[in-house]
């Protein structure tokens, strides 16, 4: 079972990296691309577990370590 946690900055937190990427894309001529936001994905190998259990574990990992609720939100997927 493989799982994935995606961590994103909260919408009200200034994403300086996203802003820089937007600027660089614009300079490359991708002027229709804007508001880029940069997040992180953690791909986790979970062994042989039930999808519901996997999902729970991923959420626990995200809450305890992978995301900081002061500035980030997260979402979880299992394959």
């Amino acid at each position, binding site marked *: 079972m493989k799982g994935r946690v995606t961590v994103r900055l909260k919408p*009200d*937190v*200034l994403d*300086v*990296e996203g802003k*820089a990427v937007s600027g660089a894309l614009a300079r490359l001529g991708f002027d229709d691309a804007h508001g880029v936001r940069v997040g992180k994905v953690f791909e986790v190998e979970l062994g042989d577990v039930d999808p519901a259990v996997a999902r729970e574990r991923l959420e626990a990992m995200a809450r*305890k*370590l*992978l995301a*900081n609720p*002061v*500035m980030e939100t997260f979402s979880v997927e299992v394959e």
Partner: protein
Amino acid sequence: MRFAVVSFPGSNCDDDCVRVATEVLGETAWKVRHDERDLRRPDVVLLPGGFSYGDYLRCGAIASLSPVMEAVAAFARAGGPVLGICNGFQVLTESHLLPGALLRNAGLKFICEDAHVRVDGRPTPFTAGVQGVLRLPIAHNEGRYHADADTLARLEGEGRVVFRYCGPDGTVSDAFNPNGASANIAGICNEGGNVVGMMPHPERNAEPLLGNGQGRALFDAALRLVGGAR
């Protein structure tokens, strides 16, 4: 006076903190490893700068889960003075001993240079009797202080912003904000005032050879306070 300096894997200013306490101040200091649970009865706890766990994931995040942090939290709850410097500040926010978070510098680059900071807010063990503007080195990639509007309002209202980036004359403005920190915040304290986190490095300017020695004032303040209480 007795300083405990917490050392996480990847801390690299732990020796510098010990050095200031012993060689500059002539006091006693020791390192406490991340996996220890006994601080060994210090008067002050220092969380040093560096790259705990490589600063991978988020600065200070992995360190905040170390066994030693339970001891630090207990020490802080009991009113013990704790100073987190740079990565130490990041560890304190990740541990929820201080509010907010430290994000990537607005310029997206590591910054190492001298900055001026104004001592503000209410007195803390490290700022009581310290006034005016100090020139202190900064060296960080994630020093942009962030907190939600309510938290910021509370920090300001309670006088808990203890250092602000400023010009040499104390002017606080965007021109003197090296990393984009909210309200030029360079350091804050907790509700009790005993836990202080700051991005600048007072230990890097605690003797004239390294600058003008102004960083020593913070350690002297702690000496006065703790020394007086004893």
